[in-house]
């Protein structure tokens, strides 16, 4: 009886912790250009400095661009971003007003519905004084953020989609639910076994 109670209480506690964890909301990334932030990639010395990068991919559902900027202690100046295809067609654009401390900043952009490749992304940093954008090899790290703040529950379909990419599996986005089912089977077997072997 005691073992049954402990198992029940433990599983309830566990599922509660799981629910609380998965309900936690936070801004989520849509994707990045995989450039590491290991050095000062671009130094902007003049007022209104601008930096452009070609061949970028903007992931679907991107609603903000996150950058790491250094301003030598000054507040972050006004910033804007624009993204265009080679033909000049605008993919998205946005701006951020001045203010806040140097570090990671998000520039809100018009939401991108579908992924766009081969895009030229230009970042303009306004205001007086020098600033630096971080990345590697002269390329700035561009991290695209999804709109607003999402819980894991809300993000689950996206995670399931990503889970199926870059793999041998033909299951695609069903691979994550399949893994969850396998784990559930392991749990069911473990609980049954504990009831039988430890509880008797």
């Amino acid at each position: 009886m005691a073992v049954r109670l402990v198992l029940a209480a433990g599983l309830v506690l566990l599922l509660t912790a799981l629910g609380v964890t998965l309900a936690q909301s936070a801004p989520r990334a849509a994707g990045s250009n995989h450039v590491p932030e290991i050095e000062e990639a671009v130094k902007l010395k003049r007022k209104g400095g601008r930096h452009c990068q070609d061949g970028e991919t903007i992931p679907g559902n991107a609603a903000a661009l996150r950058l790491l900027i250094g301003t030598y202690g000054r507040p972050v100046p006004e910033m804007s971003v624009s993204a265009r295809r080679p033909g000049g067609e605008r993919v998205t654009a946005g701006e951020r007003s001045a203010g806040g401390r140097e570090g990671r900043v998000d520039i809100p952009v018009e939401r991108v519905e579908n992924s766009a490749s081969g895009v030229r992304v230009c970042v303009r940093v306004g205001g007086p004084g020098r600033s630096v954008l971080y990345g590697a090899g002269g390329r700035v790290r561009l991290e695209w953020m999804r709109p607003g703040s999402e819980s894991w529950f809300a993000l689950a379909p996206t995670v399931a989609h990503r889970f199926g990419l870059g793999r041998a599996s033909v299951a695609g986005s069903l691979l994550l639910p399949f893994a969850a089912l396998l784990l559930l089977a392991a749990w069911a077997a473990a609980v049954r076994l504990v009831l039988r072997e430890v509880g008797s």
Partner: protein
Amino acid sequence: MRIRERLSLIPSAAWWCVAVAFLNVAVWSVVVPPFQVPDETSHLAYVQQLAETGEVPNDSDAGVFSDEQARLIEALQFSTTVGRPGEGTIWSESEDRAVDAVEDAPLTGSNAGGIQSNSNQPPLYYLLGAGVYWASPSDGLLDRLVLVRLLSAVLAALTTLFVFLFLREVLAESWTWTVGAMAVAFQPTFGFISGAVTPDALLFTASAALFLTLARVFRHGLTLERGLAIGGVLAVGSLAKLNFLALIPGAVAGLLLLAWRSPDRVRLLRAAGIAVGVLGIAALAYVAVNLSLWDRSAWGGGLATASTNVTGGSEGIEPIGLAERLGYTWQLYLPRLPFMNDQFAYFPPYATWFKGGIGVFGWLDTRFPNWTYTLALIITLPLALLAVAAVVQRRHVLVARWPELLTYGLMVAGVLVSIGFSGVRYRKDTGFIFEQTRYLLPFLPLYASLVALAALGAGRRFGRPLGAAIVVLAMGHGLFAQLLVIGRFYA
């Protein structure tokens, strides 16, 4: 007795534990993206080289990855993902199409063979992997990686079976066998490593089998058949990974101790001789294959590495004094003594071993938040005290079993010292840290015993409920570790 009859003697609970371990490790093998387990890139390269050419990677002029694997690593953005916990794996359809394009391209898988970190390792796991590689119905490398990972999961299930059977030998209370084996089946570091392409999976299996066979001979006597079994296990372990060699002196000392204390000394020595003989035959076969087929040194370079670690240096290699090696090794596991030079800027028993046991994933780049390790310590300490209490309660039994305990102690010491000596050499040569918790996973049977003892330490009334609680805790631990990895790579 026939194999089928022997298998029928195994309790059904053991098979349930096997099923649970396989399912859980299979989940790990799916959760972790390709190559995101330490050294999986080089282990898969070894498997592919062996499968495609019949050769081990030993060519100083060749590249370390085949065109197929190199392009795949590139398409999967491995170099920009590894070591950077803020960087997920590929998330876009266009990146996925790039991976598919590599898989569909007519790229060769047989033009590697360059020397890398695992080239001096013996080939048994890789041979098994090569068999799976060839048996794969698909010739895509990612498909083959999945199947070789599942081979590792099967080995993990086998390891759990041996752990269960070990507990059956050493503990009288049958319910504790399930508790200990379940703790292993859900152990996240074990699942994470065993869900990958790595010879560690076979190392853990062979180590668990060695503990089991020794426990059996200490209880039921050393017969010729059991000597043969121990010899087989020693051979498999030695041909799986060099780390296993550190267990052998302790195991052989145990057999000699057993023979020395027996009135039938000659018969036991003969059985022990069979064990050592089987190991010797396997070693000779390995040497012969190295010299004749693979055109490399007798021991494949493994013995030279081990020798350098043990002696502290050899020709052309900067020596390391014995005091430094001992000081380093001591401080890996215990607080520094006043006369020792400070070897670490952190406290390895906690920072390396404990935290690693709770969970450090990816290429050591994916960790729980710090408060999680503190919470884990708060939970672990009372359990450890209960295990100590159970040991104290059973001290009379344990004292009577001193030869067996001494054997296990020597095996543990062998591995701990080998980690220390290898670690100090590695740090001297590269400046990097060598130690990882997975190096302690050959002791899974002892870990399971401690877990079971903790439950027993709670006494007759609370032991079983605590055992059930430990299993739920292990399940939750495993689940949140998998969520951590999912969050790291896909969210």
